[in-house]
């Protein structure tokens, strides 16, 4: 018997009477729905990157990673070595357009998944930048921009991980 059970008192009775569920005074769903964004199903996302690992030549992955890094003004982006392949990179670049040469090397289904993700990133960036242009000090918009940057960094990290995978471990050179 616990300490609490051994001392049934008015406090316990009052606690038992408390409602565990309380309805918010306003509908919170619209605010949630507007911030959900797209999320790739986990299996497809993992599958897409696994296929990338199987299909994407290391050099092409480096190009893609570099382009993504240049898309956002990441503080460490300048430290990245430019790709060996001759690519015209202008900053800011249109992400989806820039990685098209890489995407074309992917199987159709994988390419579709990756394109959805990249397209979403690009749309998010555009809408955030538009809003920030009108309201540059808005902390919510700044947070959203940080979040979008973090997502881009995540993609970049995935790509960089691919480039760091030795050819003997599955990359086709």
């Amino acid at each position, binding site marked *: 018997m616990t*300490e*609490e059970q051994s001392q049934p*008192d*008015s*406090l316990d009775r*009052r*606690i038992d*009477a*408390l*409602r*565990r*569920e*309380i*309805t*918010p*005074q*306003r509908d*919170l*769903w619209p*605010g*949630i*729905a507007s*911030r*959900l964004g*797209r*999320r*790739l*199903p*986990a299996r497809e*996302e993992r599958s897409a990157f696994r296929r990338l690992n199987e299909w994407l030549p290391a050099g092409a992955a480096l190009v893609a990673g570099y382009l993504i890094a240049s898309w956002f003004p990441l503080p460490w982006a300048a430290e990245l070595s430019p790709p060996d392949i001759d690519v015209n990179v202008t900053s800011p670049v249109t992400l989806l357009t820039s990685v098209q040469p890489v995407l074309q090397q992917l199987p159709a289904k994988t390419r579709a998944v990756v394109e959805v993700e990249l397209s979403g990133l690009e749309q998010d960036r555009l809408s955030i930048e538009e809003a920030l242009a009108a309201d540059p000090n808005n902390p919510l918009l700044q947070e959203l921009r940080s979040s979008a940057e973090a997502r881009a960094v995540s993609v970049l990290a995935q790509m960089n991980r691919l480039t760091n995978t030795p050819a003997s471990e599955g990359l086709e050179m």
Partner: protein
Amino acid sequence: MNSADRDAWIRQAQRGSVAAFERLYGAHVDRIYGLCLRMTADPATAEDCTQNAFIQAWRRLEQFQGRSGFGTWLHRIAVNEVLMAQRRQVLDSSGIVHEEAAADAPTEVGLDLETAIAELPEQARHIFVLRAVYGHTHEEIAELLGLVSGTVRAHYHRARQALKEQLRLEDDND
């Protein structure tokens, strides 16, 4: 909502269905908001935490393996959101004291107790709400709040004593 429905909604949401996630939201929002309101003692902060908890749940849905119940999993995310919100408030150094929390607390049952809980010190309130109202064990609370279980037990005991004293005073005044 039966368990088959819930499981189906979770699977659909994991595949990207916002509609299924909205159903999960509908099934859990009142409990999550209740938790956030009692932990924060502030309706506006509780609303923010509730929204953030569901957004985080959506983002992490792929990590939900079903080893615990979905409600339990969501509960943990909500507790984390409350802790982060209160850390942000400390960092902001706004010094906001939620004097109006008691007035906005649920009014139908146990108003005195709700008021007394809202007036507990923050950490004691967190521990009391998680233990007494939502049934977490001391060990679970220790893990959730990053404390040792002895500290949790001590805070919980002191919170109970404080509430008893306060409620008795109010009873005497009645």
